């Protein structure tokens, strides 16, 4: 069974891989982009898969946090699907970018040019939230996976579930803000956070129901929840229609009408009937995202090229392959003792026991949360001081979306570090230390590369030195090599190897004024550094003078 699914996944992946490769090679011209928003299928797939990534944590973490634990295998399957969908989802924003090499500039951490990411942009929040969500759900999954054998980990699960509960909703809220903060008329939506969360949970439930069918089991509670959510989605679509006149019959039919067939016993009790309903929900939600992302192309069938379809196939193939390979590898740990997986009845724990465990949860979370708050405060203060944006003020509201993910990241690492460390073998500990060292060096290098003063240089042009003094500086400092007329003093310069570049107009243009000022002040190859001997304003004047000379020489 799994083998067949793995093969299907591999075939889809191979078919889609060519489309994926071509989109990386060709950039955004490869797939269909909306004429108005410039966005296309990668963003739709990103939103869809991020939504699917929610079900896992929702089902296991939120139910657990609220005291309604599901069967171990159900929650493990759901969590594994979260991790796999996250991998798929994380690929598509990269594909979407025009200049993929500049991706690191989105990270709100100093980069080598001393420029800081723009904290007002929802994309920056997005990146942080998803990265943190990935790390924390991985930790949660590992805890859950080994908790049967290691009692030290078992105690962590509920506190971790309480950390994940707000984070999972936060992530999709932030994704919805990518759309809701804009001026695009179709994306007007102060209600988008709830709308996106409902859609994410809905599609995620459908996915988990499909995956559970592959395990030959069903969980009626999830089916009931899915059916109830279909009504919520219908209400949201109704509001969207009233507010903006947007309505798609296909989306409504597949997403809100078809699920009602679950009322019929024939469909509900039939495996294929359930699969059909679940798949129809996934198609509906995928279509809905596509229509949302490309608002000016209502004719979806026309807009879809083979490359768009290829990307869809790629995402599906990658998910199926990843999921079922991991599922087969981990089957011993996943299945454990409770091989039989039938109905799970939601049963509340004994209230007295609950009280005790509740207070345990909060005492376990106290220290990690405190540390998390401290680190978040330090980060926010530092980030605000780094923000270089001129003329666009940064408000408290812009920073808040970054705070929760950071807090949860620190808290969950603090919470898990000791118990996880204690159960690791010596070899793994060694590897972990080496990896942490490499990460530290990398982050440190990233940090140390920061700090250039180009932004202040732009302002100081106001106080340029006078033309006369610039000529004097040129004669006294530069002319010995570069010549009074800007041509080389050949007799002197030929002693150098490699030969210096000619200061032609083209060369000066290609370097740009800031770089030339930099060279004058800090030197380069045979050119001596002149910092301390000429001021920055004088250097800027020299650059201007060089251009004048080069123009005369041409």
């Amino acid at each position, binding site marked *: 069974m799994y083998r067949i699914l793995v093969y299907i996944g591999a075939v889809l992946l191979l078919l889609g891989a060519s489309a994926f490769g071509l989109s990386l090679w060709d950039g955004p011209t490869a797939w269909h982009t909306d004429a108005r928003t410039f966005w296309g299928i990668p963003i739709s797939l990103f939103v869809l898969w991020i939504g699917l990534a929610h079900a896992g944590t929702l089902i296991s973490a939120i139910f657990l946090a609220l005291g309604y634990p599901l069967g171990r295998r159900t929650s493990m399957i759901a969590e594994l699907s979260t991790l796999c969908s996250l991998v798929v989802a994380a690929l598509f924003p990269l594909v979407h970018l025009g200049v993929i090499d500049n991706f690191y500039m989105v990270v709100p951490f100093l980069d080598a040019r001393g420029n800081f990411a723009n904290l007002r942009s929802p994309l920056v929040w997005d990146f942080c939230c998803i990265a943190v969500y990935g790390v924390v759900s991985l930790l949660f999954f590992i805890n859950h996976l080994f908790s049967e054998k290691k009692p030290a980990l078992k105690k962590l699960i509920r506190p971790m579930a309480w950390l994940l509960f707000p984070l999972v909703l936060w992530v999709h809220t932030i994704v919805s803000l990518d759309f809701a903060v804009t001026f695009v008329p179709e994306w007007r939506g102060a209600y988008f956070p709830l709308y996106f969360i409902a859609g994410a949970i809905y599609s995620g439930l459908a996915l988990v129901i499909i995956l559970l069918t592959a395990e030959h089991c069903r969980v009626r509670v999830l089916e009931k929840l899915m059916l109830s959510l279909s009504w919520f989605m219908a209400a949201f679509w109704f509001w969207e229609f009233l507010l903006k006149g947007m309505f798609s019959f296909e989306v409504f039919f597949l997403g809100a009408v078809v699920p009602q067939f679950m009322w019929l016993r024939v469909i509900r009790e039939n495996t294929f009937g359930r699969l059909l309903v679940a798949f129809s929900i996934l198609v509906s939600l995928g279509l809905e995202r596509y229509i949302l992302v490309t608002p000016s192309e209502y004719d979806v069938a026309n807009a879809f090229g083979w490359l768009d379809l290829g990307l869809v196939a790629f995402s599906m193939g990658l998910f199926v392959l990843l999921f079922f390979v991991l599922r087969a590898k981990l089957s011993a740990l996943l299945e454990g003792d409770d091989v039989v997986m039938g109905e799970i009845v939601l049963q509340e724990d004994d209230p007295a026991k609950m009280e005790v465990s509740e207070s345990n949860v909060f005492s376990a979370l106290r220290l990690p949360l405190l540390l998390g708050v401290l680190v978040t405060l330090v980060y926010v203060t530092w980030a605000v001081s780094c923000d270089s944006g001129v003329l666009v003020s940064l408000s408290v509201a812009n920073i808040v979306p970054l705070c929760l993910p950071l807090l949860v990241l620190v808290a969950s690492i603090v919470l898990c570090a000791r118990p996880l460390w204690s159960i690791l073998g010596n070899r793994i500990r060694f590897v972990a230390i080496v990896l942490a060292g490499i990460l530290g060096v990398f982050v440190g290098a990233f940090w140390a590369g920061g700090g250039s003063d180009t932004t202040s240089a732009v302002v100081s042009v106001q106080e*340029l030195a006078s033309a006369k003094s610039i000529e004097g500086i040129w004669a006294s400092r530069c002319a010995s090599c570069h010549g009074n007329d800007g041509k080389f003093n050949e007799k002197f310069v030929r002693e150098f190897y490699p030969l210096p570049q000619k200061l032609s107009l083209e060369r000066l243009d290609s370097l740009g004024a800031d770089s030339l000022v930099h060279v004058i002040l800090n030197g380069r190859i045979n050119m001596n550094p002149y910092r301390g001997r000429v001021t920055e304003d004088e250097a800027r004047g020299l650059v201007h003078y060089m251009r004048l000379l080069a123009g005369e020489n041409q």
Partner: protein
Amino acid sequence: MQVLWGCRRVPDFSGVSVPELAEFEKEVRQALSCSKGAFDLVQVPMPGAIRAPGASPLNRFGMAIDLDACDGCGKCILACMEENNIPLSPKEQRDAGRFMHWIEMHGGAPAMCFHCGNAPCEKVCPTGAASHSPDGLSTMMYKRCTGSRFCGANCPVGARKFNYVDSVKEGLVRKFNPGVPLREKGVMEKCSLCIQRLQDHKHAQMVAKPGTEWRGSGLKTACSEACPKNAIIFGNWLDQDSSLVKEAKHRNLYVPAEIAALDPSVVYMRGRR
């Protein structure tokens, strides 16, 4: 010593065809034949200083487009392409009515980036590539752009253009002006209000007349220089002696309704008052 990152590469034109000026003229004619719909205009007062920390109290550059004088000849589009090395669009894009032109005709009148004082594009740019200059220009750092196209989605008037193709390799661009870099594939671009002219003007004044305040007087952008009817007037909104303020004082000023609340620096003029 720090490494010099991000120096502009000199584009390699070897082995590619460089289009002739006639092809640019032809594309402008094609763009004129598929003019976009007119904006809904609303009246606004004269733009003042930008109310934000860091804004210059002396300079806020902008333009006024005289709708009574403009006859939509399209000379400004061509002048802009020559000044800023704007590439041609691939044929299929052209036929779909999508051009790289920074100036486009909306209902027979030129429209470019309005350089909003409170620009929505700058707020959503993840890397800070779209940012504001103290002089009131909405600027682009091409080297910092990662091509997320968020700014393009959030521009209410669609003034931003995306470089879908490598225009040097495709033979779609000619470097008319050596002072302006060619944009690489995958970055956003838009009207820069001829920032290179402003910069040169400033440097020249600082060297020739040190210690004087620079207000950009006497400067013209490529489009305003090229306009035969003198319908595009460039100037400094905060300089009472600039030709822009002198002219706009006696006129009714309008901007597209979509951006009326965003404090644009480029306005339309119509009728006398």
